[in-house]
Structure formats: structure tokens, C-alpha cells
């Protein structure tokens, strides 16, 4: 599957990754060759095969809906880039 420049730009946007204009051709080449590798899958007949999400024969473990953790906001916010009054600061989202 060969990708176009526009495909790569769209994927980068979905993944919220900034890609420099001059690097787009190389990304396009590399991604196309990885997708060519992956193309081999289409040769296999998988009709009726259940997809395997993980190797375990279990369902999600549940627990009682009780508070078991302590609030450690201060500790966890110590390493944040910007905080104020217990909130994480980001550029304005809503005008």
C-alpha cells in the first residue's frame, strides 16, 4: 500500500505529531514500505477466525466500587510543566 503526501499529513494530524515539510517524503517512503510488509497478511484466509486481542483466557477483573486510593495530587503535580491552584495549565482552549 503506497501512501501519498496527503495521507501522511492526515495521519500525523490524527496522531497530533508535528512533521517538518522536508521530512514528509522520507516518512512517506518508510511508512509505505512498512505497509508493504504488512500487506502479506491479505494473502491469508481468516474467514471465521475469532480475533485474538490478548493471550489470556480471562475477562476483565472487577472490584467493589469503593474508594481505595488517596489523593496525591500535590505529589503528582510536582513534575508537571505548569500548574496553578491544583489545575494543569494549557493554552486557552475555549474562546
Amino acid at each position, binding site marked *: 500500500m503506497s501512501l501519498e503526501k496527503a*495521507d*501522511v499529513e492526515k*495521519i*500525523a494530524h*490524527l*496522531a*497530533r*505529531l*508535528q*512533521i517538518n515539510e522536508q521530512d514528509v517524503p522520507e*516518512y512517506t517512503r*518508510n*511508512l509505505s*514500505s*512498512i*505497509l*508493504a*510488509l*504488512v*500487506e*502479506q*497478511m*491479505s494473502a*491469508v484466509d*481468516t474467514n471465521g*477466525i*475469532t*480475533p*485474538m*486481542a*490478548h*493471550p*489470556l483466557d*480471562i475477562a*476483565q*477483573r472487577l*472490584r467493589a466500587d469503593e474508594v481505595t486510593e488517596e489523593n*496525591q495530587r500535590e*505529589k*503528582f*503535580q*510536582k*513534575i*508537571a*510543566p*505548569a500548574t496553578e491552584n491544583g489545575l*494543569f495549565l*494549557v*493554552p*486557552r*482552549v475555549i474562546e
Partner: protein
Amino acid sequence: MHNKTISELAQGLRDKAFSSVELTQYYLDRIQQFDGDLNSFITVTPELALAQAKAADEQLAAGNATALTGIPLAQKDIFCTDGVRTSCGSKMLDNFIAPYNATVIEKFNSAGSVMLGKTNMDEFAMGSSNETSFYGAVKNPWDLDAVPGGSSGGSAACVAARMAPASTGTDTGGSIRQPAALCGITGLKPTYGRISRYGMIAFASSLDQAGPMTRDARDAAIMLNTMAGFDARDSTCLDKPVPDYTADLDNRLQGLKIGLPKEYFGEGLDSGVATAIDAAIKEYQKLGATVKEISLPNTGLAVPTYYVIAPAECSSNLSRMDGVRFGYRCENPVDLEDLYKRSRGEGFGEEVKRRIMVGTYALSAGYYDAYYLKAQQIRQLISDDFKKAFEEVDVIMGPTTPEPAFNFGEKSEDPVSMYLSDIYTIAANLAGLPGISVPAGVVDGRPAGLQIIGNYFDEARLLNVAHQYQQVTDWHQQGPERYL
């Protein structure tokens, strides 16, 4: 001293031949002496190590020692360590001081071991050569022009160079077993769900598993005893009892049925590696095992399948690196979109960005069925191949890698050729089966590894099978001259 195994060092500590503080200082000195050339550590923690060693000496004196009390270990920089930088080999987490310990680290702390430092690795565990690390490549102690393998390249190199008696690694597509093979050490990836992933920075959640990297199977068993076990904080960690993995090491192998997949011995296998593996199989036959050719027909699909599933899962896991709550943030973001795009664009390296993009594509509307769903179906087929094989054999053997360590730069320009070096290791991750690599030879100065794959939760047998081989051969005791 540095050629001693964990079990020998533990004996020395018990016999008071040396203290943990002396032992720890000894290894810290070796790191100082040798790691400038190898770059296997991202962060060395001398004060912490010596404080832990002092506490360990007190435990030893009080008669409260475990098998790992006072033993210095190196931890892959993917495990969160409270108060210590946890970088995952990335600029994105270069400033990340973990605010908690991974379960694996907690277990080692409870056992009283000593942490020498955090080892270098491919960025976010994505790589097979340790060339993608933000902190620079790691060199293979056997040959400084060669890669140590990856992603646990630093963990493998520091053990091969005897800068630590053992280390931890993680394995998603081969990242413990492949560097163990390329560096001539023993590396075990347990069954998926055997060891808690809590606090282990996630790459591909259905594939990742932690494991020991040591100089022999006995040491791996000792480490696994501490690392394994149920953890309520990891919903993929199974509540299965942990046996004493050292108990069965001395079992005789008479009657052991070994399967050799014909797909593992075909084209692409280096003749020197093939010779080493053939010699290893003969040793097993001398020990009383029988050998049978088997087929794992979907082997050829393992790499393509993995390179849909792992990138898809990583694209999801790495979406948490957004410059908001921790880690790298770009300068002067103009709006939220700019914050995300430039923090991630600047914070992540090329290979990581490639894989995020492949994963995003595979999961996106219109492509999910053709890629991700299809891959999961093939994953089922690959798993079924193993299930059928284990009806006839007890363990499966083959080479860990198609060739010994390659040179720097040889595969880094072509992602696909790099991916193919995981051809023998990847299927075990897809199926969730345990696998171990043991040193089986040296080819033109570079080690070759034998891989043994076991059935689910059959680590005790795997370790026994590895140990018996190490009783009749001495590849695992060899090392690069300079570090012996």
C-alpha cells in the same frame, strides 16, 4: 568477583567474604571504569545504591536475608523508580522523575536488592539495536562496532561486561531474548501475565512482559522468584501461584521431547548460527532428549502481524505523552493543538513517530478491519500453531536470531530490515508464551543464542532445560576478554 553469579555472590555475602557495601562499590567502580565506552547506563544511582547496600548488610547481619538481599542489579529505564529519573530512552521523559515505583521495583526493594542504576534502551522499547535511544547507542562489549541488540541493549551489555551481575529487561517482540543472544547472556521472557506491568511504561499492552537478564539459568530462576506474582493493580496479571523456580533445575532431561520448527532453519539463517544450534541440539540428545521436526506454518506472518498490532497499541499508549501533565513540553505553544503537535513532534524520535503513525493508520476509520482486525485473526492462527505443536512436544527450540550482532548503521536506515531481525522471537509474544535465550556459541567473535520456547506458565521446565545445557557446556561462562 565480577565473574560470580548471583547465587555465588549471595553465598559470599552469607559467608561474610565481603559486605554488600563493598560489593556495590566494586560494581560502581566497574561502571565508572568501563561504561564510558559502552554507554549502557542512562542514570547511575551511587548514593541510593550504597544506602540500599547498607540496609542490606543490616538484614544480612540480622539473619533476615533473601536470595537477592544485598545483590546489586541494573534496572531497565522503563520501570518507574520513585524519585529517580525514568526516561524510557526518550527526550519526552528526560525530565520525568517517577513519583512511584513499578511493582517489579517494589518487589526487588522488598527482597533487599541494590539498584546500581537505570539502563539504556531503544526509545520507548521500540527497536532491535539500541540505536534509537535519545541518550545515544549502546555498544556491544564483544565488539564495539556491533550493536548489543534491543530494546534492552543497555541491560544486556552491562551484564555481558560484568558491570552488574544481572539486570531486568522487557520483551514485546524479542527485546530481552534478542539482546541476550547478541551479547552472549541468558534472557527470559516469561508467559504474558506472569509478572505485573504496573509502573512499567507501556509500549504494546497485549505483548509487553518484564524478565530477568542474567549470566545463567539459575540466576534467572532466582530473579523470577522475586519478580513473578499477582498484582491487583495490573488487570492483565494472573492470579497464579509462584512456584520456586529453582526447585526443578536439576531434573534430568531423559524423555524430553524437543520440537524443531522447520520454518526456523531455512533461508536467511546465518550458517555460523545454524552450526551452533545444531551442536546445542546434539548436546540435548546426549542428555536424553528426543528431537522431532514440527511445523509452525504461520511463522512467516509473525513479523507483518506484529507490525500492525504493536504500533496500533503503541499509538494508543503513547497518546498520554501530551506535554500537559508531565514530560517534555514545547516552548511557547500558541494553542492546544500546537502544544500537542510540537511537544510530541519534538519529544519523540523518528522510529517512535513512525510506529505511532503506522498504528494510527491501522486503527483509523476505513482501515481498522483490513489491518488491525485482520492482524488479530492471524494472531489467533499463530497461537493455534503453537497449541498444536505442544500436543506433540514439550519445548520448541531454534536460533534466537537469524545472525549474530550486526554493525551500527547497517539496518538503521531501513526499518523493515531491522524488523526482520526479530523473526524468531516475535511469535512467542503474539501467543503469550514464555521463551528463554541461552548462549550457544561464538561466530567470528560475536555470540549466538539458542532460543527455547515453552508452554504457558511452564517457566520451571524452561529454566530446567536451559540449566541442564549449561551444566554440560560453558558458553554462558564466556565473555569478552576485556571484561572477564
